[in-house]
């Protein structure tokens, strides 16, 4: 078993029934349990209010319990995990979580505590730029009674100091960072509809080999639209190359724009290497499966799909290695 974790500041963890199995990634979902780290709030809503701390503040979270339970699950031991109720702001009675093959932990602080961090086999940080975060929250909240541009802005700003202090620094520990930025294809775009997305992949991570475009390690700028492929406005642009990120050596793959048609996606997939697919067209097939999900036609969907394939690959390597070492041990 291994763990991956996701930081997601803009949206709370998705809950789909007990021990939530999100259907968002069909590549691994039948072997996966997702736990939401909000369940490890040590202060409920009233407690946070009394102390004047946000949920982003480590003081509102029980890292000892988080570590104990993630460790137990990794060791194959079931746990009684608390449940934080986002509507009432209270802790509900705990639920039994059995050790899964793949455990995903998602929330605000997956990489904050070094003990928890060290348990993870792979980690992902979703880094949403301020512009895009604002646009997404408007999209999410504007129709809500009581909300206005001012309230959305105020909420982001009031939480920003804690976000900068406790959440953002975690990205330096992530094996993969997905950065979501405004497009550069449309001059002065402030619409937040077309996105530029970067997949920053750490080099030298066990079981994880970064994706590349055309030639591993080179610096490449690629516009797939042209004689062989027609794209609609504002087009699609890729970039790839080595870089450094928090003094780590990384490879960065970037996509600006969005896919409007099937052949664009297939064309792009056929030019990417190391994507850990099991057959030609698997990325395209996965993305079509989720065509009704937001972002499924841009870099957020493409890179999440690729990360899903990488996670499956990582899992299979770990399982294979464990099986091999068991055989080895039996021989002795």
């Amino acid at each position: 078993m291994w763990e991956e974790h996701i930081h997601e500041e803009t949206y709370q963890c998705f809950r789909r029934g007990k021990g939530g199995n999100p259907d968002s990634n069909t590549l691994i979902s039948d072997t996966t349990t997702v736990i939401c780290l909000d369940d490890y709030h040590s202060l409920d809503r009233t407690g946070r209010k009394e102390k004047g701390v946000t949920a982003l503040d480590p003081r509102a979270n029980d890292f000892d319990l988080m570590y104990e339970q993630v460790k137990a699950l990794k060791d194959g031991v079931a746990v009684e995990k608390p449940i934080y109720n986002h509507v009432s702001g209270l802790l509900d009675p705990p639920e039994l979580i059995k050790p899964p093959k793949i455990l995903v932990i998602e929330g605000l602080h997956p990489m904050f505590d070094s003990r928890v961090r060290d348990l993870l086999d792979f980690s992902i940080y979703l880094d949403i730029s301020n512009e895009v975060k604002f646009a997404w929250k408007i999209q999410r909240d504007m129709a809500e009674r009581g909300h206005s541009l001012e309230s959305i802005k105020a909420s982001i700003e009031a939480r920003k100091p804690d976000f900068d202090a406790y959440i953002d620094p975690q990205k330096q520990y992530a094996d993969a960072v997905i950065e979501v930025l405004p497009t550069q294809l449309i001059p002065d775009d402030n619409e937040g509809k077309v996105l530029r997305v970067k997949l920053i992949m750490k080099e030298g991570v066990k079981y994880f080999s970064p994706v590349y475009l055309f030639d591993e390690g080179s610096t490449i700028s690629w516009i797939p639209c042209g004689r062989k492929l027609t794209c609609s406005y504002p087009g699609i642009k890729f970039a790839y190359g080595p870089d450094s990120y928090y003094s780590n050596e990384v490879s960065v793959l970037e996509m600006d724009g969005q896919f409007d048609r099937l052949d664009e996606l297939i064309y792009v997939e056929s030019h990417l290497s190391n994507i850990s697919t099991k057959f030609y067209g698997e990325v395209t097939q996965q993305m079509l499966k989720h065509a009704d999900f937001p972002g499924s036609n841009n870099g957020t969907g493409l890179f999440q799909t690729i990360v899903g394939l990488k996670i499956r690959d990582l899992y299979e390597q770990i399982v294979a290695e464990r099986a091999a070492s068991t055989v080895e041990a039996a021989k002795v």
Partner: protein
Amino acid sequence: MSDPRRSPAPSKTPPSIAPSFIFFKLNNKTKNQVEKKAMAAALSGVSLSTPRGVISSKSEIPKAPKRSLVSWNTKIGYGAGRMVAVQPVHSTPTPSGISGKVEESIEKAKEACAGDNESGECAAAWDEVEELSAAASHARDKAKDSDPLEAYCKDNPETDECRTYED
């Protein structure tokens, strides 16, 4: 691979050629009504800038786009929508209990920040707004999943009941 130019381009992308229009589903009719319409609303509201090369004439927008094989953009998503002056209409309303809590929390946050908007109390109050707003959004998603028409259209997007129309 077939030449993409040979087949008529699926006209699924008016928002990208005409960023001054936004598409959102108006589904405020009763659930029993089988007719579902998406409406293209021309937003004459504040626009910070209009990208060059934009086709902003309404007549440029195809009247009844067919859903292409790739049904991108058929649902309102993270990326859909303008940053400014847009009042998105949620096709599924927020359950009233949560909706009231969101509204109440915003009022309380404004009060909590009235004296000092850098206090812990102020941040905690706006944090509660964020938590409840996210919960409201999830509740809407859940309600949508349990909507029989939505579920049907997910599997049968090409049927008449599930066609979306523009204007």
